[in-house]
């Protein structure tokens, strides 16, 4: 039945070849390659919970009298946006857990993007030919941050309303076009009645569509260029060593999606986030102390707090102080970030293709630059909670503020210097990062003690581990003797079939089900098929075409 259906489509669309190739595609297996996946899975959770929220949220600034389930606000004049969020939280079944999952997923989403970006940066995965994907990645980060801010603003509560107020002032601070920009976006002066519906359209339609499109491009390019891999045994610039798409990688990734969703669901169910009913409706004359944005905007808030109130004039006009930390800083940040592959190319003059990753210790100068820059933003991030830190540690707010003003210049060079020295040191010690071999203490006949290093792990040992895996995983195994051929090495060794023959890849197609051109037939090798049991039992090797 399945074979017939598959054949029906294959005869019309010719999908068998592509599907077969896809199912056999090799993905390098390393936990750090799964950081980007966390971001993607959080995004899927965001889409599902977000769709649920749109069913109940009313994007309107129209004022109504609230008579809902939350009594401390009974009879208050609130906007429909705020009232519908309260209704969502108190009267809609599972509404609050969905809202909280959405918010936690957003926090995890951006955090995963940042950690993924750090992995890509420190391992040099952005080098040729992956510059385009790096640029797309930085665009995804910007869109994620912007959409997080928009979503945070939609409930129209006291805390987020203050954030919108700040955003309005930031737009106003842009020289020449600022007032036009601000009035264009807000449809007039702050607060107006247009901003909630406009943010809503951006938040649920335009920016998610952009994110989904760029994410698709990000993945398609990754698929086309194939994944990078760490240096190691059997890995070269010309091959990909890892597990195949089906079933190993697909099941692994599917399981990881459920784990990510589970963590977000647990947070959404157990830990309260953004209790807007305690904050109340945003009214411009009301303000609460201790207002922070969500964490991914923290570095901008921190920069705003640290900026001294200088009056800087240019071209005969005063440029508002806000412009420098809130417009110029992110502008420089994201431009430099997006252009980094090209900046590095200018410095290193390296125009070669790279599919093997650097270990951060191998390139101390890049690691040092990355750590220094990261330290700068981490200090800014902590500076956004000056008041909470001052209150928690019973310090003067002014002391904390001035402390951060100094730290923001002192910490990055120190961090960069330390990172450089550590990377240099680690890189110069042979065998750093490799698994240590145990020393055994022995005693000789004379009663003297001596140590002896244990033998290196034998391939036999590795195979014993592999044998615990279910048989389904052990497929697409390749005869080690045929590696050379497959990866196009000049000197094929061993007794393989001639290149170009059906068994050229060294894969025994095994017993096939009946039928001529089925999609789901996967070339497989039973363990006995690998001569001398020296094959690559768990994964496979893909050709980097």
């Amino acid at each position, binding site marked *: 039945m399945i074979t017939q259906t598959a054949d029906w489509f294959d005869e019309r669309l010719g999908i068998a070849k592509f599907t077969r190739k896809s199912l056999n595609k090799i993905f*390098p*297996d*390393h*936990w750090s390659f*799964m*950081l980007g996946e*966390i971001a993607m899975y959080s995004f899927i959770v965001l889409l599902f919970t977000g769709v649920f929220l749109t069913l109940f949220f009313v994007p309107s600034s129209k004022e109504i009298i609230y008579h809902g*389930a*939350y*009594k*401390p*606000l*009974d009879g*208050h004049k609130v906007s429909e946006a705020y009232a519908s969020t309260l209704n969502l*939280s*108190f009267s809609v079944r599972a509404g*609050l857990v969905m809202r*909280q999952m959405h*918010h936690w997923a957003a*926090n*995890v989403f951006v*955090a*995963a993007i940042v*950690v993924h970006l750090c992995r890509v940066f420190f391992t040099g995965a952005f080098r040729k030919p992956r510059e385009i994907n790096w640029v797309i990645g930085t665009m995804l980060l910007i869109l994620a941050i912007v959409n997080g801010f928009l979503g945070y603003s939609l409930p129209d509560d*006291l805390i987020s309303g203050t954030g919108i107020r700040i955003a309005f002032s930031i737009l106003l601070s842009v020289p020449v076009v600022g007032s036009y920009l601000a009035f264009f976006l807000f449809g007039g002066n702050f607060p107006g009645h247009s901003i909630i519906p406009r943010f809503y359209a951006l938040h649920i339609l335009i920016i998610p569509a952009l994110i989904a499109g760029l994410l698709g491009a990000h993945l398609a390019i990754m698929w086309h260029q194939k994944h990078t891999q*760490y240096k*190691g045994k059997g890995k070269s610039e010309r091959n990909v060593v890892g597990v195949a798409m089906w079933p190993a990688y697909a099941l*692994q990734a599917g399981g990881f999606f459920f*784990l990510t969703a589970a*963590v*977000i669901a647990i*947070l959404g169910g*157990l*830990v*309260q*986030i*953004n*209790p807007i009913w*305690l*904050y109340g409706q945003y*009214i411009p*004359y*009301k*303000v*609460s*102390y*201790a207002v*922070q*944005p*969500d*964490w991914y905007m923290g570095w901008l808030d921190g920069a705003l707090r640290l900026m001294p109130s200088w009056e800087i004039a240019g071209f005969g006009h005063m440029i508002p102080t806000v412009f420098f930390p809130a417009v110029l800083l992110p502008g420089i940040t994201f431009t430099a970030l997006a252009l980094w592959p090209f900046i590095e190319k200018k410095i290193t003059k390296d125009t070669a293709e790279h599919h093997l990753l650097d270990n951060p210790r191998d390139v101390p100068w890049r690691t040092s630059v990355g750590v220094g820059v990261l330290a700068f933003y981490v200090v800014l991030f902590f500076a956004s909670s000056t*008041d*909470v830190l*001052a*209150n928690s540690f019973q*310090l*003067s*707010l*002014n002391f*904390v503020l001035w402390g951060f003003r100094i730290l923001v210049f002192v910490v990055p060079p120190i961090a960069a210097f330390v990172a450089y020295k550590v990377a240099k040191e680690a890189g110069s010690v042979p065998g750093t990062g490799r698994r240590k071999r145990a020393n055994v203490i022995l005693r000789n006949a004379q009663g003297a003690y001596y140590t002896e290093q244990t033998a290196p792990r034998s391939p036999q040992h590795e195979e014993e581990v592999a044998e615990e895996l279910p048989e389904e995983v052990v497929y697409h195994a390749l005869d080690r003797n045929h590696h050379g051929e497959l990866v196009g090495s000049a000197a094929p060794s061993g007794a393989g079939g001639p290149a170009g023959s059906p068994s050229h890849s060294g894969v025994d197609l095994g017993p096939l089900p009946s039928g001529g051109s089925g999609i789901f037939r996967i070339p497989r090798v039973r363990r006995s098929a690998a001569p001398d049991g020296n094959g690559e039992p768990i994964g496979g090797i893909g050709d980097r075409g």
Partner: protein
Amino acid sequence: MSIERRRAAKLPNLKRRVLLPAAVGVAAAGITTLALLPQAGAAQSNNPSDLGNYGYTGSYIYGGTPSKGGGPITYEKLNPASIPYGKTLFLENCSTCHGVEAQGTTRAPNLQGLGAATIDFWVSTGRMPLADPTVQAVQKPPRFSRSQTLAIDAYVSSLAPGGPAIPNVNLTLANLAQGESLFSTNCAACHTITGAGDALASGVFAPSLMAATTTQIAEAVRTGPGNMPRFGPNTLTDQQVADVVKYVDYLKAPNDRGGIAIGHVGPVTEGFVGIIIGLGTVMLAGLWIGGRAK
């Protein structure tokens, strides 16, 4: 008879057996929900009389002649017989800085005519006696028992007339929703909207309201301790003070429907939990699933 035909024959029977109870169940649930909804609403709804009296009633009595009315705030009647004991306590614990007649010295202000509420607030919250007058007083376990505190209050307020008496708030006559409105307008700018408190500037801070009793909250509103503004009877009526007190009292254990409250300080702790616990846990899961360096 083939299986299909037997199934077809059973279908109407099945329908009757399953669909009817289901329909009855849905209808019953619907009716119950409809019946319960207004009740659930009414259970917490505000009595119209709560909305009542916002005008200045004149029940706000200064000095040593407190009222015993039935309003939202009644005033403590201090016992004149405790004045000598209060004087002893004052001389032992307070006079070094405030002077033997509470007239003030170079170290501490004159207390005469401030009223019993002022004295009661500072002593009952443990802020007085104060070790170092150059830093903001913090709440700590009070040195005196309630009767000792009242004796000191009685003594100091007997020295000169004036100032508010000690308020007792009747929360059943206060309106929570009005309290929220007044709190967010007048208090949240320093104490934060959740009452968690925050650092202000140069070592000055707005304390957390979580440990304050209803009487202490009303005293603070009426007397304006430290940097806090004083809200007199022409700014907030007794009813309004009671409303604010009711909301602050509610904030001590608010509706944390979402789960663990993580400090009520907003995105700072939320970001911490999101990054460390959220992303951290998922990364550990990734480390568990994914391969390691070989």
